[in-house]
């Protein structure tokens, strides 16, 4: 159902007439409020540059062990994937998802950002969703916000930035919510009533505080229900996932957050292991929290600013590189495969003689997911949401 309205939006960009599409009005809900339909999108920004090669490992290529003599001595056997790749054992808990077709990867993908390898600029470009033809900082909003802008009338509840860290991905003119799962308003009912009185005549403060009090109460109730006395304390990843799942079970369709800890310049075996385990925990917890039905309508995608060097450095780590990895999960995806052409590890196949050669634009994967889930038209995606992107041919990402 959703496809038509968004097709129309794209059609308008192409100059087609609205009158040619009689379905327009049926897609506006009775209440006058628009929605994105039932599909859920979760975007996780992995800050610090995830080592894609060490995550989905080209185990059959002897060059890998040669490039990384100090890193490739995996203590446990990695999980076999497909085409000579294996999954880092830290993610072994995700293997059932892979087998169920609910986990996939995009290897050797990157933003159009090249050569400078600054986290800061790389994340800027990743979240702005721009290419090299657009001057740095010329676009001031995030691409996920521009997606929301393309559907005027969505409620702020539609999209959630989860956590305390800024998320430029979702910043911009379209309204979106943000909340940190550990944020609580601990005030007595009497003080709550006094605050209501103080905010009564100021709609900005009144609405924001009402929402804050509701969220805070709901979270407290959930906590009471979910964690009986003596139960183990939840990790931050679990809290984040629980909160996102809670919102996505309700009126929200999009959740975005970021995780750090990927900048593994030294002692990568330990650092990457811990970051991957955290991510795995987030994904599994989210799946559990969403339940089978909603997980079935969910596409989760991780994105990182760039990959890391193919060769290990002098401190048992890797440095900033180019081609990286995106992880896809969810019941909506056509998983069990590794997307994107594999460039190989031969010296001449590397980017600048040091990095995995990017073979696809990371934005195109998000764009295809958005097209498949919400029916956004290609012209709109390539012009407004990701200006200058060429989405290429349909990778058939979703079921």
């Amino acid at each position: 159902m959703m496809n038509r309205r968004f097709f129309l939006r794209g059609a308008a960009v192409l100059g087609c007439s609205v009158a040619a599409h009689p379905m327009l009005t049926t897609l506006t809900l009775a209440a006058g409020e628009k929605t994105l339909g039932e599909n859920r999108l979760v975007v996780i920004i992995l800050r610090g540059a995830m080592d894609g090669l060490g995550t989905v490992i080209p185990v059959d290529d002897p060059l890998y062990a040669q490039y990384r003599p100090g890193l490739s001595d995996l203590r446990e056997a990695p999980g076999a994937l497909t085409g000579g790749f294996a999954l880092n054992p830290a993610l072994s808990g995700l293997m059932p998802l892979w087998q169920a077709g609910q986990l996939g990867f995009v290897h050797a993908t990157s933003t159009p950002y090249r050569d400078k390898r600054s986290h800061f600029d790389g994340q800027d470009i990743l979240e702005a969703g721009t290419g090299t033809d657009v001057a740095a900082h010329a676009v001031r909003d995030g691409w996920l916000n521009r997606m929301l802008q393309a559907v005027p009338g969505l409620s702020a509840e539609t999209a959630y930035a989860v956590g305390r860290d800024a998320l430029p991905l979702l910043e911009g003119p379209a309204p979106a919510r943000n909340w940190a799962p550990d944020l609580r308003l601990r005030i007595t009912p009497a003080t709550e009533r006094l605050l209501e009185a103080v905010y009564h005549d100021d709609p900005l403060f009144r609405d924001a505080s009402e929402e804050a009090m509701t969220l805070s109460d709901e979270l407290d109730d959930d906590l009471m229900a979910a964690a009986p006395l003596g139960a183990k304390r939840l990790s931050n990843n679990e809290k984040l996932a629980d909160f996102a799942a809670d919102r996505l079970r309700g009126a929200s369709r999009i959740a975005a957050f970021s995780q750090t800890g990927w900048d593994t310049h030294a002692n990568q075996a330990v650092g990457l292991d811990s970051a991957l385990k955290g991510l795995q925990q987030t994904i599994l917890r989210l799946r559990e929290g969403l339940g089978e039905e909603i997980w079935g309508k969910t596409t989760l995608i991780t994105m990182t600013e760039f990959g890391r060097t193919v060769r290990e450095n002098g401190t048992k780590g890797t440095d900033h590189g180019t081609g990286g990895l995106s992880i896809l999960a969810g019941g909506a995806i056509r998983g069990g495969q590794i997307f994107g052409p594999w460039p190989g590890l031969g010296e001449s196949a590397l980017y600048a003689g040091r990095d995995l050669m990017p073979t696809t634009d990371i934005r195109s994967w998000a764009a295809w997911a958005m097209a498949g889930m919400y029916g956004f038209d290609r012209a709109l995606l390539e012009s407004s949401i990701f200006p200058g992107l060429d989405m290429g041919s349909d990778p058939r990402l979703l079921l």
Partner: protein
Amino acid sequence: MPINQTVAAFRFGFGLPLPKAAPATPEAMLAALADPDPGAALWPGITTADAVAQMQFVEAARRRGKESKEAFEMAGREIGLYGMELRDQSVKVAVARALDSPDGFRERLVAFWADHFTVVSKNQRTTAMPSAMVEDAIRPYLSGQFADLLVAVTLHPAMLLYLNQDQSLGPGSKVGKAKGRGLNENLAREVMELHTLGVGGGYSQADVREMAELMTGLTVTTADGFTFRETWVEPGAETVLGVTYDGKGTEPIIQALRALAVRPETAEHISRKLAVHFVSDDPDPDLVAAMSSAWRSSGGDLMAVYGAFLTHPSAWTLTAAKVRQPAEFLVAALRGLGVTGADVMAMDQKTLARTVVRPMQAMGQPWQQAPGPNGWPEQPEKWINPAHLATRIAWSMALPQRLADPLPDPRAMAGTVLGDRAGEAITLAVSRAESVREGVGLVLASPEFNRR
């Protein structure tokens, strides 16, 4: 001209009660701005020399870290500690000056210009650079000619690093040709789009390109900080907005910046921005016109612009159309609780983090980390959303008891910190609060306190 002291404190200062010796009329506010900077004299700030020393320290530590895994970890710790101390000093000095300086308008202008010329440190080498730019390129120039301010900021290493000018080479320069490197237009574009003319300010992509070529040679080195490399300069003259600039060294760049500073589009853009920041997102066009006219007729003399601003009736409307940004909210709250600059300077790291650094972040304004070169948003709804308001409420209810012993009587405090704004609803609510702590919390969480 007699003015409303509550409006003066909220709109043009850091809140009530006004510090001792605070000027009480627009004329006195302007006269104070013409005097030497009393805030800078109170507490020494981080200088550009300090920021360059940090770059040198970090690079030396990183070299040591290459020797072994242990050395790498040790270097990481040293770099982190060094940066943390500078960050804390930077926050403390800014807050202490805002609390104690009698010239509150100047401190607010410092924040305005720091935001207008937003810079963010991109790595651990340069965390002190934003403060250094404020200290050496903004504070000394904010009551002089805009052209001088613009030149000082544009040539500051913090700006060169943030907007990638340090990596921009003339493609036809000696080094550019030898290494096949070229232009980065980022700073040239932002100088026009954000710092001077404004979007739609009558410049073209060709002007941006020419400006970028003109600015080649400006860079930053760890040894010297600001550096000009003649071997990076694009040969030949450049034409920006119809004027041709040629010559050696930084002089042609400075000339072009000076020309941008006095353009009518610049006058309009920045006058409007001042009015938006201080008064309303939709300011009286007549106010903007008066400021812009003062800008044009004085050739960008900022005192003339501030004069037109403060003597205009629309600067003194009673409507509080804006919201205090988190940094402002925290300073005003500290002031309302009687915390002094000396108290802030004496805070240990934990206390500072709990009281100022983490709350600022949780309220949506992490210190010196604006989301982009266009700085922090101005719209009230960007600052008062459920999460950020909840954080303001939580701070208001929990932190004062750690900062003031005994807590002030909230009924008296409502009058002291809200002035004329202490209306019926807040007064009644405070009188019904279950405890002194919650009464104080209600005052600080109220719209009357958070709006300005």
